[in-house]
């Protein structure tokens, strides 16, 4: 590809999985938390597995929240990364980055036989935008999460677990996916390829 892909280093895990997935599609990633490297990269990926309030605190303490908001290039948040791009998360009542106008709430099975976290493969539907080029109407993606983003203006893919929620969000150069494209077999690899081609 010849482009520089920065993966944001912070206190939320699974960076290795994302790097390996990028390598499998022939790209290499630079893992960094240096503002200048993030600003100059062609693409930025914001992965994340962990807890919202401690992740936001970590970003704020290092000024990375302002850096992320100022980025102009294609930017992809994954899982917790996407949730942190929303306005607010119920996970320890956390004010997030506000790049998307949706909020993050906890799944409530309400006495029904649903499991939380949602763990496993679920279909994404209502696909809109370039991230989903070349995929069928309802490809399956791998999810692991206890919190979800509400449906709203920025929703560009929907999944149903207990109720419909945002499987992906986009606004301008900012994209977020609740599922793990790096673990979603060939369909997930297609999404990463599409992102790199933006």
């Amino acid at each position, binding site marked *: 590809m010849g482009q520089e892909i920065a993966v944001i280093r912070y206190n939320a895990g699974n960076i290795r999985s994302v790097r390996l997935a990028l390598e499998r599609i022939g790209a290499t990633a630079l893992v960094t938390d240096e503002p200048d490297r993030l600003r100059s990269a062609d693409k930025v990926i914001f992965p994340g597995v962990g807890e919202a309030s401690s992740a936001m605190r970590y970003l704020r303490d290092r000024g990375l929240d302002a850096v992320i908001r100022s980025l102009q290039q294609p930017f992809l948040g994954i899982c917790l990364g996407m949730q942190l791009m929303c306005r607010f998360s119920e996970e320890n009542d956390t004010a997030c980055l506000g790049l998307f106008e949706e909020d993050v709430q906890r799944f409530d099975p309400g006495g029904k036989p649903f499991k939380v976290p949602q763990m496993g493969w679920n*279909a994404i539907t209502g696909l809109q935008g370039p991230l989903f080029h070349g995929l069928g109407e309802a490809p399956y993606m791998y999810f692991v999460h206890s919190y979800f983003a509400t449906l709203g203006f920025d929703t560009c893919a929907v999944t149903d677990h207990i109720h419909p929620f945002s499987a992906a969000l986009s606004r301008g150069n900012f994209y977020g996916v609740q599922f793990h494209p790096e673990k979603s077999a060939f369909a997930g690899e297609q999404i990463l390829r599409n992102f790199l081609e933006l």
Partner: protein
Amino acid sequence: MLTKRIIPCLDIKDGRTVKGTHFVNLRDAGDPVELGARYAEEGADELVFLDITATNEKRRTLGVLVDRIARQLNIPFTVGGGIAAVEDVRDLLELGADKISVNTAAFRRPALIQELAGEFGSQCVVVAIDAKRGADGEWYVHLNGGRTATDTRCADWACQAVEAGAGEVLLTSMDHDGAKQGFALDLTGRLAQMLPVPVIASGGGGQPAHFIEVLQAGADAALAASIFHFREIAIPDLKDHLQQHGLPVRR
């Protein structure tokens, strides 16, 4: 709709895949890196890798193998066997595992589950339970690869493990393991309905009807080894059967 998962399991000894019956009589089943790649290609929903090599010295070669598998695997990857400390897990996650499975060490010291969930999140902590039915008809936890019996009931330990932070339970019936006569439906169904986290059924899958039964009984996922290793059932064919019986699967 969330689909039911089909999970091939690689039991690893000295760098090779092995498979036994009722936890003994191991035979060679091939190169784990090749098997892992084949299963991902065929549509496996996840891969589980259990190291049954006992000694610490041999454990170092395990890291190399985990790394090699993780590099090529584009589906979730769980690694287990002999994990006893937070540092073991950190190493495995850095090598590319997505989840880890703990068994004996967690039973001996349940605080390990809390430590792991606190450090890495519940989503990556799978508690594996080896179950055997006692003379009284109850299911009891067995440790050390099935060699050590306890007087703790499986259901009690499963509840305690989930409370401590386990994100998933991998339930293996030693009585059914390798016999290909079907899964332990009663215990699996009971735990799947009782626990708020996913339950993976393991031990006894020999033909599609067995997978249909256990998934209809409530299991969230079904794991098997030899029938996949020895090509007795292809994963796409198994998923066809599940789908025909109304079970949601990823195609």
